């Protein structure tokens, strides 16, 4: 089997998520080549073939162009499998490439069991195995496959195309300045959708204050405007590794887990016993927040 692993660059620098793609290819015993729209001065470490298109011409966002380049690399390499990260770059391009190949796509592969890919389903409460035939495109959940050690220099095969999206790429906008650096916190107490309404975030703040922790939040709470973005934990917020993480009313969407599962000790407080936060929690208190948090805070203060 031959696998084309799609690497990414962001603002001129190659990202490291291709190492997880290489790990997936290796687990399948596939011969791997890399693809990158990037710069010759900043190549990913890899001992093998790299299909390289110049980012100066093809830009970092130009899906029609990148799709055409990937299809050309698939053909030249004779790839059976195209591996993307399930990232903002990967999920935007993978279906376009799959359609170009008339191939199936499996999104956010989380596990390989006996060579078969499994995908998360129903809020990660279930795992799904899917059969396909012919060429296949996959996107891999970040962190699901241990990255291979980077090393070597690639043999470059240059790619080019005149295809271009009619989308004008105007540039990047940095994330809002973080007023709060949660990456250094030792204790984080986070509020999730389960708090139910803005006023009840105070219960979580009170608990955080009682144990000298910082307030964190999951995405829905931030989107609803109950807590500022600087408190957001997860792939679109901060990735944190405190000694103690208390998740209050957080169901445990993959995007949130990715940002906190490295915490030393995780306590979940949730009335839904089946919530996927249970997969990473050390202690799971099955309780209604509104009743439980005041009691807990009171005991901690006493």
């Amino acid at each position, binding site marked *: 089997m031959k696998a084309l692993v799609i690497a990414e660059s962001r603002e001129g620098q190659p990202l490291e998520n291709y190492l997880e793609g290489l790990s997936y290819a290796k687990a399948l015993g596939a011969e791997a080549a890399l693809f990158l729209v990037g710069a010759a001065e900043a190549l990913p470490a890899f001992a093998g073939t790299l299909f390289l298109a110049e980012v100066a011409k093809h830009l970092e966002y130009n899906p029609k162009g990148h799709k055409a380049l990937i299809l050309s690399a698939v053909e030249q390499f004779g790839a059976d499998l195209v591996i993307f990260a399930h990232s*903002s770059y990967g999920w935007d391009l993978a279906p376009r490439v*799959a359609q170009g190949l008339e191939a199936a796509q499996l999104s956010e592969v989380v596990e390989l069991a006996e060579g078969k890919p499994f995908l998360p389903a129903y809020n990660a409460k279930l795992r*799904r195995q899917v059969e396909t035939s012919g060429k296949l495109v996959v996107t891999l959940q970040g962190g699901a496959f241990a990255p291979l050690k980077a090393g070597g220099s690639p043999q470059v095969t240059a790619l080019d195309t005149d295809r271009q999206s009619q989308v004008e*790429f105007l540039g990047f906008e940095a994330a809002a300045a973080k007023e709060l650096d949660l990456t250094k916190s030792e204790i984080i107490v986070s509020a999730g959708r389960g708090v139910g309404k803005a006023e009840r975030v105070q219960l979580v703040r009170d608990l955080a204050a009682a144990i000298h922790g910082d307030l964190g939040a999951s995405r829905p709470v931030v989107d609803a405007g109950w807590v500022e973005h600087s408190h957001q934990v997860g792939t679109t917020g901060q990735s944190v590794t405190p000694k103690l993480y208390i998740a209050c009313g957080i169901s445990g969407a993959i995007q949130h887990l990715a940002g906190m599962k490295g915490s030393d000790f995780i306590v979940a407080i949730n009335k839904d016993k089946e919530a996927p936060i249970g997969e990473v929690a050390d202690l799971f208190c099955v309780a209604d927040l509104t009743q*439980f948090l005041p009691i807990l805070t009171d005991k901690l203060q006493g």
Partner: protein
Amino acid sequence: MKILVCVKQVPDMESRFQVQAGGTAIEEADLAFRVNEYDEFAIEEAVRLKEKLGEGSELTVLSLGPQRVAEAIKKALAMGCDQGIHILDTASRDPYQVASLIYQAVKDQDFEVIFTGMQSQDLGYAQTGLLLAELLGIEAVTTVVSFCQEGDGFLVQRELEGGQRMNLKLQAPALFTCQLGLNQPRYPTLPNIMKAKKKKITQLEAASLAPPAARSQTTSLRPPAKKGQAKFLEGDLGAMADQLVAELKAKSLI
């Protein structure tokens, strides 16, 4: 301007999911269904665009699935869509089939702007919108967190990792997949729910739209192997709090 929003009805994610005998689908009997959360942002953005453009713009909501899906269409109509298309289908479809069915239903209708959610909460493919755009041969931008129409063009922001964003400009026709937080989806008001009852929903049978063969097939569905070492505490809240405090103290975490 003709605007389309595609929505999916999904089970409430707080539900307890049971796998059917046969092991490839979930038991639906005890589940409550609702509009996919990402699609609520898509509906809201579509309604805002229609309201901004005023006279001469028309907004259609489309959904695919069994009879129950009509509820999702009605909600979108109550939020401000003008009419609905329901592709009646009881089969389990892969994203390529779903996109192909939608394509067959809308290909001659010249929609200039199409909104979808960026993914569904239940299966999380994040493919259907892009495949539809590919089939229609129009531009598509995913993970939109800011949307602004200006003249016959659009200024949008895509969300990247860590809160970084990308600014893009494009012209119609185009498809946008909407990320959570793009706007604040409105609640349908009672008068609008009443008005929505008079709006037209066109039903199409999936079989009449010649669905292509699936490219993928679910062969098993099971709970994940529990890596989790989680210790569960239940029952009396006071006792639970005492136990939690004791555990945290024993580990010198507080």
